[in-house]
């Protein structure tokens, strides 16, 4: 599907979803982020917020304010859909969105990465190679979902593809770096989890005291950097 072609469906009385396709692809991610930026630049009356995902942008609004607006249409869905259709990046007015590059220091193995040895054994490589493969590539943030501040990252080396743990852990600490299938990610909060934990970052992926609590946002580039336990402790106390 070429960039900029989308369909719009109703999610609820206060939200519509703009769907650019049904696969994970850079041009679709770009289309989602472009429309998001465009909409925030030119919001319609009653516009609330958005939730960007792999290939969709969901737009939330206050139905009472949308109904009061001059937008053409018999109901909110028609009014908002009409507005979004005219905002389409087909017009090529949107500048490409470039995210930030975020380096995430990770202390791999040991108490911080209880599954590192298991992952290495499974792939019949050394733990050093696992760390190298994991920290050698750059990742892109596809979307934030699951739990507050959790980033779905794309770009992992296929050689690290690892099945989830047979029995999920009751508790995984905040900052734990895990693998599941072709995905890798960082747990922002302590929670139950079935991912293979290979390390931990001292960074807070979700922090209520920041203006934007989530460290990452869609479109950001992520780099994992191996650190030792001394640096980990310095970063934690500092």
């Amino acid at each position, binding site marked *: 599907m070429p960039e900029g072609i989308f369909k719009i469906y109703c999610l609820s009385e206060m939200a519509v979803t703009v769907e650019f396709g049904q696969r994970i692809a850079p041009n679709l991610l770009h289309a989602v982020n472009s429309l998001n930026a465009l909409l925030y630049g030119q919001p319609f009356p009653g516009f609330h917020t958005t939730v960007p995902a792999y290939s969709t942008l969901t737009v939330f609004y206050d139905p009472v304010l949308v109904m009061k607006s001059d937008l053409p249409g018999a109901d909110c869905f028609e009014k908002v859909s009409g507005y979004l259709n005219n905002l389409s990046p087909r017009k090529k007015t949107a500048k490409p969105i470039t995210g930030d590059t975020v380096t995430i220091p990770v202390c791999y193995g040991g108490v911080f990465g209880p599954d590192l040895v298991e992952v290495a054994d499974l792939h019949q490589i050394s733990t050093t190679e696992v760390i190298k493969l994991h920290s050698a590539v750059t990742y892109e943030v596809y979307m934030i979902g699951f*739990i507050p501040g959790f980033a779905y990252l794309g770009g992992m080396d296929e050689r690290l593809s690892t099945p989830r743990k047979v029995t999920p852990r009751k508790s995984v600490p905040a900052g734990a770096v895990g693998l599941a299938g072709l995905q890798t990610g960082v747990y922002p909060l302590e929670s139950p989890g079935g991912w293979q934990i290979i390390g931990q970052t001292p960074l807070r992926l979700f922090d209520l005291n920041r203006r934007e609590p989530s460290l990452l946002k869609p479109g950001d580039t992520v780099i994992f950097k191996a650190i030792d336990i001394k640096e980990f402790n310095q970063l934690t106390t500092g």
Partner: protein
Amino acid sequence: MRIRILKPGLMSTIQDLGRYQFISQAVPVSGAMDRLSARMANKALDNRDNAAVIEFTYADAAFIAETDLLISYAGDGSILTSGEHQLPAGRPLFIPSGTIIKLTNTLSGSRIYLAVAGGWDVPEVLGSKSTYLAAGFGGLDGRALQRGDILKNEQRLTDSTKRILKSLKGDKVNYPRWSIAGQSFLPADRKTIRVVRGNEFDWFDGLSITIFLSTSYVIGRQSNRMGYHLEGANLARLKKGELLSSAVVPGTIQVTGSGNMVLLMADCQTTGGYPRIAQVAAVDMPLCAQLKPGDSFFFKEISRHEAEMLYIEREQQLQQLTIAVQSKFL
């Protein structure tokens, strides 16, 4: 105004109308499960609709007035009593200092909302006072209420709230003859939940759709503020493909890989990857909030346009109600 919790009940949390600002960062909306009742409790005091209330689940709770109080409650599942005296819902209630108020369970419904003049005073976290238990923030220290907790009201009251207080104040429990009729907003049939087709409605075969819209479903045991598991006939999929995760909201009905249905509620995740057969009409979410494990009900399909119009209509009625309460105390 100040209360102390003597008995917290099974699950009692501070909630407002939700936390919308950070859903793009996967922070759930949260807020009162039954927003209509939360608003009713606030309206009876001429509070802002969004003022923080206590959500009591299956009640069996008690608190003591440590000062004179002006409170009100709405919802289902329990009644407030002071000694032998039943206190009516949907009205401002003046409670003198030292009174012990009990919440006694009733057979129907599961959640009531306790409002206080000005709203309960807890810090705003990410733009809302709602408790989100899974991540431990919002409300009172991000947790459910416990025995011994002290809760205060916000000092700033509207002029009509002040007038209500003045008219009822005395040395015993007092309330006006009028009440705001919360139940009149809800259909007489509480066992039919209206739904709009979800985006993946066509992924299910004709027989499954017929079953979905004609047989009863039961709220499963594994049901909480995040979602309800629905017990009943499993649904067969016509289309087998995978769905990429995208936004879901409270009221979304997802069908899992094994054909079971999950109705998402206030604390649900912000994104999901299961096909969505339907979306509960927003005006019927208060009915869902009052269902409890073991309750059975039916789904009925309405159009997207009808659901929208019902929503707009209810908002207009609620607006008129605020004006009506204010006009009683001009």
